[in-house]
């Protein structure tokens, strides 16, 4: 059932920490070369999923393939990790080493050729903008600089898969922009990126596909454009009579609003030309038609709303029981 040609594939991956269930049954597939956004509220299980993928924790049930290697097979998974870069959510590096030495240690652990290391390290330092501080001790770095170093560590050795757990949590706006550029650069090279984040605008700007997780399970997954339906159209038109609006409604375009500005709902992008034709037939003079994209944030909140309500209801029910 698991196919080795995906960058990541999980089937019913579950993780319990004692009484706490961090992941219920995660099934997803991340294609090679894609930028995959993994979203969810705090405590949804994002970091847990990443740790399972990297072999830092063991699944309670289910299995996952990372670059074709099952996490349950220690040896194969270790070999596969040669081609994986990782920036942890809790990024900390040996404070008593310089940035260059940290990178060198990671090169050695990855088994990168001695001759190639210098170049690899310089390139990583330049990419994350730490070239000037390369020989300073890491303990003298600011938090954002440490995160940049972590990013550099994740980029070493041209990995095939880069896993970034909240890569911009400590970065300034320039840093966030840099990360987007780095991620785009990775895509251009064909690298798969698995991006854990709750900064939705960021995900929206770089990701091809996203999964939304909540309480340990996937509640939505798909291409970003499919997930964010463009189903509202703003119209500015004059000469639209009530009769004309009624006939438009019979064609399936119900317009809200009055005067010149209207909103048509439930119109997906392919039907926009038909809407314009119908407006013209009805005798309206059309000044502007703007299909509106739902933002990821709106979608995210809509997806989570039922769960949040459910949670609230559950909480009140529990309270009642206590009384």
């Amino acid at each position, binding site marked *: 059932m698991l196919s080795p040609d995906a960058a990541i594939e999980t089937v019913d991956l579950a993780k319990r920490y004692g009484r706490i269930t961090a992941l219920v049954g995660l099934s997803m597939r991340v294609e090679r070369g894609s930028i995959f956004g993994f979203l969810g509220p705090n405590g949804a299980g994002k970091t847990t999923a990443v*740790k399972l993928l*990297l*072999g*830092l*924790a*063991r699944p309670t049930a289910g299995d996952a393939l990372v670059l074709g290697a099952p996490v349950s097979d*220690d040896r194969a998974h*270790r*070999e596969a*990790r*040669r081609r*994986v870069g*990782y*920036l*942890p959510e*809790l*990024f*900390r*590096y*040996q404070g*008593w*080493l310089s940035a260059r*030495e940290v990178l060198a*240690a*990671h090169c*050695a*652990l*990855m*088994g990168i050729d001695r001759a190639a290391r210098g170049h690899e390290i310089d390139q990583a330092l330049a990419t994350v903008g730490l070239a000037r501080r390369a020989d300073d001790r890491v303990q003298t770095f600011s938090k954002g600089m440490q995160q940049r170093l*972590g990013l550099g*560590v994740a980029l070493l050795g041209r990995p095939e898969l880069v896993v970034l757990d909240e890569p911009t949590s400590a970065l300034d706006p320039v840093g966030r922009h840099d990360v987007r550029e780095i991620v785009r650069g990775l895509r251009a090279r064909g690298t798969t990126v698995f991006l854990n984040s709750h900064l939705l605008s960021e995900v929206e700007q770089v990701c091809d596909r996203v999964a939304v997780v909540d309480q340990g399970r996937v509640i939505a997954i798909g291409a970003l454009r499919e997930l964010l339906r463009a189903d509202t159209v703003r119209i500015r038109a004059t000469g639209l009579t009530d009769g004309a609006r009624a006939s438009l409604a019979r064609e399936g375009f119900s317009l809200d609003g009055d005067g010149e500005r209207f909103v048509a709902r439930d119109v997906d992008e392919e039907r926009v030309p038909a809407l314009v034709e119908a407006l013209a037939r009805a005798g309206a003079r059309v000044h502007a038609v703007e299909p509106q994209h739902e933002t990821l944030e709106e979608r995210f909140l809509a997806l989570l709303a039922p769960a949040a309500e459910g949670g609230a209801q559950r909480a009140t029910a529990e309270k009642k029981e206590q009384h």
Partner: protein
Amino acid sequence: MLVVAGLVLREAARRRLVLAVVILTALAVVLTGWGFSRIPYLSARPLPVEQVRLIASQLVILVAFMFSFVLALSAVFVAAPAISGEVESGIALSLLARPISRTSYLIGKWLGLAALLFVYTAASTALELVVVRSVVDYEPPRPLEAFAFLYTEGLVLLTLALALSTRMSGMVGGVVALVLFGMAWMGGIVGGIGQAFDNATVTHVGTVTKLVLPTDGLWRGAVHALEPAAVLTGVRGAGPAAAANPFFASAPPPFPFLVWSALWIAAVLVLALWSFRHREI
């Protein structure tokens, strides 16, 4: 594996652990050296050479005890947070996501720490013995053997603390290891008392603690290697009560005990590996 070991050594050097230890050891050697130099003038008339050597031999054992104690403490303090510290801080996250196994990470740590301990034990014992020889012209009978016993004693504690470090925070693991060390020392004395009074039960208690944690047995080995023949015959003449004295050993540790100590280190290391392989980071 060697990369991890190298990181341990570099950390010790960079964090000035080595510097601090070197300064303190030099200080201790100077102080004890001065102490040895005062022996001939302890009484109004200068003591004869024979007596000076006898006193020096006993003092060397006391100094060795101090060193073994410092060695044990340092081994525990350095090894107890070696793994738990990196897991708690998050350094281990990025290291263990690399293509290295938990086994080579742990063995790398152990090798690095063991090398550190070796250099420290060798340097400090050599320095102390050289000072003693130049000050009072006394040399214990088998210094290399004593060094080997002291080092193995440190290695036992280091391995124990590292094993605890796979599961416990540095502070807890350190305290547990030191309490066990203290209990083993007491167990050795208790066993000695059992021997002195020919009480089988009490002797067994001593033997069992010696096997559970071989530090005290190894310490007695070091003592025996430092005892001149004259002292041995002298104290043996005083009867079996001497067995209760923690600074005396009437016989070297039996060969099976040495094998047991080696097995003990290997077994605890295997236990640590098993524990760490199942540790969630």
